[in-house]
């Protein structure tokens, strides 16, 4: 049992899984717990998700916390093939916070919603004394209709399936890291974007197995969860993973592995290999997914439940689920 919550419990890797399981135990014990997917599929063909956002800095190249919150919720729904019909927003605001700044975030959240046809259906604001929260904490809840004939799930992967990413990886995490560590990387921008319009056409493919937006923990974490969830081996090819030179150089400087850098506008997709070409063509029709690429394949081999990667220099290595916060190396 965890004694105290640490930042590593929030980093999306192994420890996050652990604390989530502990916190859900009272529900799972009673048989009323959720499945551990991006969004829940509800009876009647509905889907629902909740996601909380604090980010420092709150405005970053490529977006701000308002836009980020909407994208995060919408992408969770999209990953399960559901349209972003309704949104609820809960704001916890620190006393003294600039109202002007808040309005900016609401403006950008509203713009993103309007583009998607998402309606703000409910909301709540709380103000807490100084120190009660760091500036502002925004929690979004999104609700929509499932538009796939069969449920997409991380348990669906089968040997032979292709793994696709919709765009180059790690841009959000790298952007935030760059501003936290005061590194100026020219041309680096968060990928923060709503993916529903891009993935909606994919839902017609009956070979579509699973989708996941690679947020905290990055692509690497998502694929580890898939391999575990389906009990299969996933083989990646490093050379084919789209990676911008900016993300690559930032990771080099800080000693980070781009596979674990957060994305906010990148979908990982598993698809029956016979439909890969069709899927890529559909994805690439979206301006957000021009770099979509097949990056690996599910195999029937060993090690089951794990991900391995053929590296740029032709070697092999494991891709493990990360543990702990991403911290820059010392030298």
């Amino acid at each position, binding site marked *: 049992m965890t004694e105290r919550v640490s930042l590593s419990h929030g980093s999306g890797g192994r420890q996050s899984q652990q604390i989530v399981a502990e916190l859900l135990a009272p529900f799972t014990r009673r048989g009323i717990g959720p499945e551990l997917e991006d969004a829940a599929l509800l009876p009647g063909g509905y889907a629902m998700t909740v996601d909380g956002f604090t980010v420092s800095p709150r405005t970053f190249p490529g977006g701000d916390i308002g836009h980020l919150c909407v994208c995060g919720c919408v992408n969770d729904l999209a990953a399960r093939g559901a349209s972003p019909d309704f949104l609820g927003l809960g704001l916890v605001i620190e006393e003294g916070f600039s109202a002007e700044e808040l309005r900016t975030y609401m403006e950008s959240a509203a713009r993103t919603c309007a583009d998607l046809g998402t309606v703000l259906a409910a909301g709540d604001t709380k103000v807490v004394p100084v120190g009660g929260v760091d500036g502002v904490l925004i929690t979004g809840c999104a609700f929509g209709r499932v538009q796939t004939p069969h449920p997409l799930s991380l348990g669906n992967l089968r040997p032979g399936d292709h793994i696709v990413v919709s765009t180059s990886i790690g841009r959000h995490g790298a952007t935030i890291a760059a501003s936290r560590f005061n590194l100026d990387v020219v041309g680096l921008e968060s990928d923060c974007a709503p993916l529903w319009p891009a993935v909606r056409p994919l839902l017609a493919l009956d070979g579509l197995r699973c989708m996941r937006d690679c947020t905290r923990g990055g692509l690497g974490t998502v694929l580890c969860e898939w391999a575990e969830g389906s009990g299969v081996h996933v083989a990646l090819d490093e050379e084919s993973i789209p990676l911008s030179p900016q993300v690559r150089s930032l990771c080099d400087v800080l000693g980070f592995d781009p596979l674990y850098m957060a994305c906010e506008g990148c979908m990982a997709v598993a698809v029956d290999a016979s439909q890969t070409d069709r899927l890529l063509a559909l994805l690439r029709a979206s301006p957000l997914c021009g770099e979509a690429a097949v990056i690996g394949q599910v195999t029937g081999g060993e090690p089951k439940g794990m991900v391995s990667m053929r*590296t740029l220099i032709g*070697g092999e290595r494991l891709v493990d689920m990360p543990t702990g916060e991403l911290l820059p190396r*010392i030298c």
Partner: protein
Amino acid sequence: MPGDLRAAVEALRRLAEESATAVTVMEVCGTHTVSAFRSGLRSVLPKSMRLISGPGCPVCVTDQGEIEAALSLLRRGVVVVAYGDMFKVPSASGSLASMRGEGHDVRTATSAMDALRVAEENPGREVVFLGVGFETTAPATATLVREARRKGIANLSVLSFHKRTPPAVEALAGAADVQISAFLLPGHVSVITGHEPFRFLADRFGLPAVIAGFDPEQILLAMVEIARQIRAGAPELRSVYGTAVRPEGNRKALGLLDEVFSVRDARWRGIGLIPDSGYGLRGDYGDFDAERRFSLVIVPGTPPAGCRCGDVLTGRITPPQCPLFRTACTPLSPVGPCMVSSEGTCGAYFRFHREERT
């Protein structure tokens, strides 16, 4: 795979075939360790060539007693500023991360100068920078101390656990029970120190020593160079790092180190005391020495029961040979620093190594 890489792998294979002997290369630096794993380089090496990790992960070689000293400062209400990689290292009474979880004031630094800012922003509190790392990070700590004096910042001091690479390498080259055929030396240390401090490897021990950068291409080139020297029976110190390493090193950084630090014996976790392998603050910078300011007595730590980090750090065993590896010791509940540090050998084996896990 790019053509020049393929050529290098091919060259290595040919050289390995020609000289029948098994070759064990120690990579001194933790960044080399991780790069060799992450890039899959280890898996393309010829069977007769082996890379083993050395004592070059700054977090791993910081003695338990030194971490305890930092924790004791936190308990006295001091603000401790440390490189992020230090946070999770377990010690007898906790870690910087667990202390932060209990409400103590620990801050992450990406550069030593961050500590100056923290001290300026908290004039009413004592701020201590935890100086760890080798010749690469020591100059930044020296700059910090000099700046603190120049600006007259009285609430900042430094706990200097900086270590010098050459004495540790020398200790290993001379160790009777570790068979090392050659050394892979870190380019970024050599940028500071220059070539000279490592020449003894070829001159006195007859060992090839090649300085290389961190990317897999450089490591491969270095391995080719090592194999070539071994086949020719002509060990020497060479650099494949290009022009960044000047044979005389970085005079400015060396001058700075000289001005602020004096060389002293240092305790390496799991290895023990190595003469002249550490940097302590010079007497005339004594005001900024946290050991003095807080009258700290640093008691050498005993490694956690069963942990064989010392043997891992000296190449005597590989992590899977430690009985705790992957059983009692995992990145989630690390027993030793070699499992917890992002550059630690045990952690690298755990994360990237496949054979042992199937």
